[in-house]
């Protein structure tokens, strides 16, 4: 029963505080009055009686205090009091409050913004039921020396997928998910204007595996997995439904033209589901059966990820045990069918294991590409927070000398040290709570901006950036941690005030200043570390941008042309069509050159390669890059032709005279070479300098013939300069160029000074004039494509650089504050020296020398840490070593510049001190 009574008392104490206090006042007053009366009855006059009572029993005030201390809700009361006091004292020193709260808010905001992205991309589980039971399959990527490739390979072929499904049995259900791509579609059919949407292919049971229900209509089922091209349906996302169709409930039954398929919308997925790739919002899901027919039977064509859900009671290890034998057998078979594959690569294929890992957070390229950089940026944010905290701590320390009188009085009035510390910590928490709220608002605004920095037109990055509980908790935790970091030491310091010493005007300056210096030293170290990091990333980006591309990538518009024509299906006619298109575009005014290549080739991530066997040389260890090029390709790209000639019309005709010599297998490279006719001569190719150096050394390669897969022969008719294939990081790779032939997807490379929109329209006009229902799939520039490959570096340089500057600013403020305080404290001394005839320069030196050692120490510490950290992030750098003199010198220069600025003003003050005024301040 006691607790019920306690509870009522607590409520009454908190809510009826006035009443309760008034009650207590009256009770105590009445008590004391009675005591006084008794004394009076003994004969003492009123005043004497009162004094006697007070002497014996203490004052009524003290009694009330003791009651208040033991009351229910006492803690809450004092905390509330402390907070009000804290707010008042913050209001009284607005300069300090503003600096502290603003710098803290910036730091907290930056950290929260980055964390919300990290959370959405890497930490938050997919919005599906039981995400912990999801897993993803992968294997090791085949590594080729010299090429820049990711560590893991997530793509699988359809025949293998079918085998996996059979082998998994009832231990798990496997779903197929292709990476969402921004594609051109038309609603409702071919005649409508082109629009863009992110489309992804999935197996029929994918929605079921993920437990995603429709909010309208239905989702796919296993019924959609039966007939290739037999299920022209689409399920759209809730977001797309709202955005594109305004939530119209009549959307079911409407049509979408995707390539040659006219799909019917059969359902809308539930709200919040965006697919399995964090960083991408899929708009339209299409059954896997609607993908290219060849892909469904080609065991060499990997085009999707496999994600699955464990059945109850199954474990990932058990599933892997079932699938691994299937995978191993499959890889062996693949190697057996392509015996011409270089031996090191064969070994990799045979030996690479099937990997299975948890996929609660989904699986996306974004996670792979940006995972580490994001964590690094978060670390940078933590560094800034520490700097801001050190800043505020040193400011607090400086202020504590002002407040020592107040502290001394409170101690003499009976406050315990614990009580004082509690009050000071409450002040810190109040300030950081305000900063936290401001930082939260800042993060809300900044996070979308940061995401926009990461995305581009061709690969939009979208996140469900909900600033939800986890992010809120993070923000609160960071604020509280900040308060603890910067509040504890000053509170400890301030509460150590000795009343007697205060009375005598003695000040415990020395110790406070030592601590303040220590904090500034910490700031210096961190700031230097940040600057070194920021400079490294900036240098990396600059180095990448400065890589000699071997050709002129500026002013080149890239347009993808889809020739899935109704009436032209034969290759010869396609060739004629492409030649005609190239000729027409070239001839237009404003166009300096046009050439044709394959879509998705240059800098867009995909690549093709072939075997190269030079007679008389040992078998190579890898395949070489290949690239299609039309006549006048090299002139258009301004790639130097070093020897021989460009391709011409006649080079292509080698392929089409005579019947096919033999049946070819379906290796991807062979797709582009078609049938060989031994009656004809070797096919012409152009190679680059790196190729010549690798295979021919100093010999003249022109006219030489080498052999490729299945005995096909290639004759070198020209040599061009080196150019990167897909990545600027790789360095010059050997490349074999062959004549582009009509396929359905080509890219037009157009050198022009016109803007992209006009060029697209121009090409559209030409293709219309030619008829044949050609579609232009949007245009971009080569500069943009190259820029896209640098997104990670841009992120690190951009955000890292900004944060580094922010940290430097904060540290400079801290330095300034301390120097200022030091000058103020030593006014008298400086005044005396000045009066004695010291020159201004020596006065300045006097002030600066104080901190010179401090700064040097901080720099040394910062340097040490940066060496360690740089070696950790080495893989993200380009052209910058872990200990790079250029970076260090730049960082030191920037740092000294900031120090000079920060120290300039106080030093100027020191030099300008009027001895008379200073001495008079005694």
């Amino acid at each position, binding site marked *: *029963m*006691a607790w*019920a*009574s*306690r509870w009522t*008392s607590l409520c009454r104490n908190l809510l009826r505080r006035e009443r309760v206090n008034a009650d*207590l006042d*009256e*009770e*105590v007053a*009445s*008590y*004391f*009055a*009675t*005591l006084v*009366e008794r004394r009076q009855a003994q004969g003492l006059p009123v005043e004497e009686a009162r004094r006697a009572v007070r002497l*014996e*029993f*203490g004052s009524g005030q*003290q*009694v009330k205090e*003791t*009651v208040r*201390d*033991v*009351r*229910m809700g006492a803690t809450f009361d004092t905390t509330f009091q402390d907070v009000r006091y804290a707010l008042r004292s913050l209001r009284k020193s607005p300069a300090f409050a503003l600096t502290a709260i603003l710098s803290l808010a910036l730091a907290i905001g930056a950290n929260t913004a980055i964390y919300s992205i990290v959370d959405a991309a890497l930490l938050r589980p997919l919005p599906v039921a039981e995400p912990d039971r999801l897993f993803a399959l992968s294997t090791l990527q085949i590594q080729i020396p010299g090429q820049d490739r990711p560590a893991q390979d997530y793509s699988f072929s359809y025949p293998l997928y079918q085998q996996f499904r059979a082998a998994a049995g009832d231990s798990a259900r496997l779903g197929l998910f292709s990476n969402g791509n921004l594609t051109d579609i038309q609603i409702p059919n071919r005649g409508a204007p082109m629009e863009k949407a992110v489309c992804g292919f999935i197996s029929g049971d994918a929605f079921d595996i993920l437990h995603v229900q429709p909010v309208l209509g239905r989702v796919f089922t296993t019924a959609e997995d039966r007939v290739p091209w037999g299920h022209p349906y689409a399920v759209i996302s809730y977001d797309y439904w709202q955005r594109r169709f305004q939530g119209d409930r009549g959307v079911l039954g409407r049509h979408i033209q995707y390539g040659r398929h006219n799909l019917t919308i059969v359902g809308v997925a539930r709200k919040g589901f965006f697919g399995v790739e964090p960083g991408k919002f899929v708009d339209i899901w299409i059954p896997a059966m609607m993908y290219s027919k060849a892909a469904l039977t080609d065991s060499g064509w990997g085009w999707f990820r496999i994600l699955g859900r464990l059945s109850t009671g199954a474990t990932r290890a058990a599933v892997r045990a079932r699938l691994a034998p299937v995978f191993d057998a499959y890889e062996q078979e693949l190697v057996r069918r392509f015996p011409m594959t270089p031996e090191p690569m064969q070994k990799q294929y045979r030996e690479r294991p099937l990997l299975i890992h948890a996929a609660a957070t989904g699986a996306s390229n974004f996670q792979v590409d940006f995972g580490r950089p994001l964590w690094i940026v978060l670390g940078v944010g933590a560094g800034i927070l520490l700097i801001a905290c050190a800043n505020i701590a040193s400011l607090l320390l400086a202020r504590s000398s002002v407040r020592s009188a107040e502290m001394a009085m409170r101690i003499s009035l009976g406050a315990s040290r614990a009580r004082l510390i509690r009050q000071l910590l409450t002040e810190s928490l109040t300030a950081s709570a305000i900063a936290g709220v401001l930082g939260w608002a800042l993060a809300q605004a900044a996070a979308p901006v940061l995401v926009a920095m990461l995305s581009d037109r061709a690969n939009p990055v979208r996140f469900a950036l909900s600033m939800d509980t986890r992010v809120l908790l993070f923000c609160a935790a960071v604020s509280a941690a900040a308060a603890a970091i910067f509040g504890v030491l000053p509170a400890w310091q301030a509460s150590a005030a000795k009343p007697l010493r205060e009375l005598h005007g003695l000040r415990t300056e020395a110790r406070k200043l030592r601590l303040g210096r220590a904090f500034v030293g910490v700031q210096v170290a961190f700031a230097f570390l940040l600057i070194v990091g920021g400079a490294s990333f900036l240098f990396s980006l600059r180095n990448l941008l400065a890589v000699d591309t071997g050709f002129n990538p500026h002013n080149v518009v890239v347009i993808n042309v889809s020739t899935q024509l109704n009436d032209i299906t034969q290759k010869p006619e396609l060739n004629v069509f492409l030649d005609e298109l190239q000729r027409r575009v070239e001839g237009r005014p404003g166009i300096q050159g046009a050439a044709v290549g394959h879509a998705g080739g240059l800098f867009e991530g995909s690549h093709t390669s072939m075997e190269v066997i030079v007679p008389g040389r040992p078998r190579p260890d890898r395949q070489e890059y290949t690239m299609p090029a039309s006549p006048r390709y090299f002139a258009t790209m301004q790639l130097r032709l070093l020897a021989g000639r460009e391709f011409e019309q006649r080079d292509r005709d080698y392929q089409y005279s005579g019947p096919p010599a033999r049946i070819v297998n379906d290796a991807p490279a062979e797709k582009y070479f078609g049938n060989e006719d031994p009656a004809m001569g070797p096919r012409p190719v152009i190679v680059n300098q790196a190729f010549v150096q690798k295979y021919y050394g100093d010999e003249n390669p022109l006219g030489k013939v080498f052999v490729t897969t299945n005995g096909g022969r290639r004759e070198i008719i020209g040599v061009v300069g080196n150019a990167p294939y897909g990545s600027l990081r790789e360095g010059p790779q050997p490349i074999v160029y062959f004549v582009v032939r009509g396929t359905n997807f080509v890219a037009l490379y157009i050198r022009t000074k016109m803007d992209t929109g006009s060029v697209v329209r121009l090409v559209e006009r030409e293709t219309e004039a030619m008829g044949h229902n050609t579609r232009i799939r949007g245009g971009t520039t080569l500069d943009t494509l190259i820029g896209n490959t640098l997104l990670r570096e841009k992120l690190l340089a951009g955000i890292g650089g900004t944060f580094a500057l922010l940290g430097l600013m904060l540290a400079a403020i801290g330095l300034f504050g301390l120097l200022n305080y030091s000058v103020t404290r030593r006014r008298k001394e400086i005044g005396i020296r000045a009066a004695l005839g010291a020159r201004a320069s020596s006065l300045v030196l006097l002030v600066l020398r104080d901190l010179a050692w401090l700064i040097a120490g901080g720099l040394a510490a910062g340097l040490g840490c940066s060496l360690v950290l740089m070696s950790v992030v080495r893989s993200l750098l380009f052209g910058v070593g872990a200990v790079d003199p250029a970076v260090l010198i730049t960082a030191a220069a920037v740092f000294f510049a900031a120090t000079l600025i920060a120290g300039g003003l106080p030093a100027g003050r020191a030099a300008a001190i009027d001895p008379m005024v200073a001495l008079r301040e005694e």
Partner: protein
Amino acid sequence: MAKTVEILQGTLDLLILRTLELRPLHGVAIADRIEQVTKGTFVVGPGSLFPALHRLAEKGWIEGQWGEQETGRRAKCYSMTRSGRMQLAKEQRNWERILTAMNQVLTQEG
């Protein structure tokens, strides 16, 4: 007056409860009674009495009511509640056990 002895918080609670067992008293009277019964050994000042009274009241063992004294002055009068009586009985039993134990220790031979 005789030297006062320091009273532990728990024993003060017991004293107050016992004092109020017979009839309700107001603040000053409680202190007077304790001093009187212990013949001056325990002198309870307001600095100790008030916190104790309020603590006991919050626990629900006594309750206070404003009333008028003979002198015409308003004063808070405290009386024991039912749960207070139960608590008192419990405390008394406890105290007897402590007493017995202390006695045994202090009078033990060799």
